[in-house]
């Protein structure tokens, strides 16, 4: 067992963890944050995506001990004071989810993608930016629409790049 201290969703959490415990199971089983899902055992699906110090990571590719001293943000912290995050709202309005299993990971990956971009994202940028996250239900069409809409809302003031990624 090793003691770690991780700031999760703004709260400092201290815990003894097994050195082999993956971050995703620390979140799900030790902290009870079950919004982060597990969809594979090969770091392929992206269902487990969270933010580590603001950047998206697959929490099944990291050990809990590697998060020691870092900040982790999960889907549970995206809405604040009952207000949905713009990406959550966009997924709802654009029907960017069906079964919802990939959704927390998609939203976290999209958040990092949007914030790291210089301006609103084009369709191609969203599709490439989310290639580490698999969805089996939606065919991605409405996920892409939702992320583009959220990107417009979050980054619209930065720089409008006209004519890109219209879509239906």
């Amino acid at each position, binding site marked *: 067992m090793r003691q770690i201290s991780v700031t999760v969703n703004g709260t400092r959490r201290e815990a003894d963890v*097994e050195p*082999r415990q993956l971050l995703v199971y620390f979140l*799900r089983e030790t902290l009870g*944050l*079950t*919004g*982060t*899902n*597990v*969809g*594979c*055992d*090969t770091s*392929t*699906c992206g*269902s487990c995506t969270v933010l580590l110090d603001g950047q998206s990571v697959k929490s099944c590719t990291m050990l809990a001990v590697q998060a020691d001293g870092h900040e982790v943000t*999960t*889907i*549970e912290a*995206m*809405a604040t004071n009952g207000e*949905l995050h713009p990406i*959550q709202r966009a*997924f*709802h*309005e654009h*029907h960017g*989810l*069906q*079964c*919802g*299993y*990939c*959704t*927390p990971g998609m*939203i976290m990956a999209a958040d990092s993608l949007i914030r790291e971009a210089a301006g609103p994202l084009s*369709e191609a940028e*969203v*599709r*490439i930016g*989310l*290639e*580490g*996250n*698999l*969805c*089996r*239900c*939606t*065919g*991605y*069409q*409405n*996920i*892409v629409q939702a992320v583009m809409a959220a990107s417009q809302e979050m980054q619209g003031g930065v720089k409008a790049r006209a004519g890109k990624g219209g*879509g*239906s």
Partner: protein
Amino acid sequence: MAVAERTIGTSPPRKEDPELITGQARYTDDLTMPGMLHMVVVRSPFAHARIKGVDASKALAMDGVVAVYTGADLAADWAGPLLMAWAVSEDLKNPPHWPLTKDEARHQGDGVAVVLATSRAAAKDAAEAVEVDYEPLPVVVDMEAALADGAPLVHEDQGTNKAYTWSLKNGDVDAVFAAAPVVVKERYVIQRAIPTAIETRAVIADPSPAMGEYTLWSATQIPHIVRVAMVVATGIPESKLRVIAPRVGGGFGSKLQVYAEEALCLLVAKKLGRPVKWVEERSENYLATHHGRDQIQVAELAADEQGKIRGFRFNIMVNMGAYLMIITPGTPLLGAFVYCGCYGGDAYEVNFTGVFTNTTPTDAYRGAGRPEATYAIERIIEALARKVGKDPVEIRRLNFLPAFTEPTPMPGGLSIDSGNYDATLDQALELAGYDQLRKEQQVRRERGDTKQIGIGLSTYLEMCGLAPSRVLKALNYAAGGWDAATIRLSPTGKVQVIAGTSPHGQGHATTFAQIVADDLGIPFDDIEVITGDTTLAPLGMDTYGSRSIAIGGVAVHRAAMKIVEKTRRIAAHELEVSDEDLDYASGTFSVKGAPDRAKTVPGLAWSAWTAHDLPDGMEPGLEETAVYDAANFVFPYGAHICAVEVDTETGQVDILKYVAVDDVGVVINPQIVDGQVAGGVIQGIAEALFEEAVYSDDGQLLTASLTNYEVPAASDVPSIVIGRGPELPSTTNELGVKGVGETGTIASPPAVINAVIDALSHLGVTDVPRPASPENVWRTIRSTRGGDGR
């Protein structure tokens, strides 16, 4: 009085979403019970092996390990094997399928033992310490090899690998073929697919030993059917067993199953008196969750010189895998009637041969039988077009059944509810810019470009809304095809809809609420929908085969109409008029000629609850149940057009444009319908271009992880263009609805493959293997050009 606005045809954002987008939804793996044990299944690494002994002593000595059970240990505890519900023919071989095999492993991943421990990690470690003494046996994975004389037998005691034969014949097929001036015949291989829902399976069995009661949570599409099957397997009476499908992360048919782990968790929970949880790992999912497709088809059409079809004949071999699961033998039959597509003809024959092999069992995968049927007819009709020198559009128009809005017979022997095949094709051609694409193709041909354009069509007929119970009896399926809904009004006029379908992404809570909102004039936000729980929703047949709107939705509507009838009597009584003197619209009863004298359904719910002044003999309360058994299937149809660019040097295929025009009858929620279409089309494109389950000759699944089995990412697929056609109401039900969950997966593979072939037709290519991966396309080009294909 203001009339509530209709919600049908509009897209209120889904009721399901808030908990899903905030991470608050609870899937099975999110649940924990006090004192819960974790189960891990020890699986055979061999595709075929005799189990000579199991030594669990090392495992049992490990920390946290509570028990290990082998197939032999549990043999006496089972009341029966896992349910196989579809004995399609007299000659069917149905070897019993036990949750753990006792004697022989018959496919890689066959369960041999279970380990129970206090943590997931401990159970995993201990499973690796269980020593099984295997004696490898000869393996057969190829269907044709399995039917050859002297082939290794998957089930020695059955004496053959032939699981069954089944035929459907209308008209004098042999005579029609003998007399036809044109006959085309081709062979197609539909590769094995792995459904790959992003949530793997998961089960928790929670016993209440003193009460003899059990709750089973399972990531399933079919809680009601699982409950019946668990009675068969474990002997626990239905009255003591509650099955709950909580939030379920996709199914695509793979969770339309009764699985060993459901029975094992229950039985072990019963033996140990403790809750037991099992969560499938992804690589385990590839071995232990059923696969789909896997057919070898010989397709034939008989036609006149113009290309007008006279006869259809299809001989099809279907890979069952190692065992028959719930509807393994019946899955191909779900497509048996639509091998004619939307075309006419005088004679029709479909023959299936089911074959056992040492592979994971197959069963329903999105579309279940209809994608295979559609692939066969939409490929062979293009072969006919080539033979008689017609354009793919022309050959289809020549053979379409004429438009109709009343039930009309088709060559497969059923009666179609409504259709206008030219109309969907017209719209698809327009949306695709077909003429422009053909011009562009011509230009590139003439220039001799490396990258060539191909255009592929698929004009399909889908048959869904499973299913009229009488038809199911005629096909020898063990259960019925009805579904049920209860509508309960609270005293203050809020509504609970309790439905027997069990969603896993389809949006039933939203769609059903829209139906009730319009029927009862009650705000959408005041309606809650309850599903997926055999105690809360005891009557139901669950979700598969695009049945939820066409069967379940109609049951919801009928229950709402019963509420209208009861409230009409209360309204008439209160207004002191006769029932016939009342008009009804959107929740308001008003006296004919005196519209100010009116009562609304929510107000009448209060009257029904107080019961102070009800008509004589009327029971208090406002709750009605309807059970709907359809008289016929529903038949969505449409036209899909795919334009691809194929690099003739590398074999790379890129989709330039994809148009899906689907007439699914009356649309309740357009946004949800578009979502189903897009998801289905991309899943079908994935089968056409990327995905393939590959076995080695010794039965090792080579694509047993998400890195080897190529589920496409957003960057691999296009956005598609969606059209709706003439939206002819179904004549099967009063809502006019048809199903939409599977149309995309049914229609798209032949559209894509036809496009790839079309792009290469100038090179003499007439066939491309599925998936049309760069390697497969490149080899095809090489071998057609006379190279050696290496």
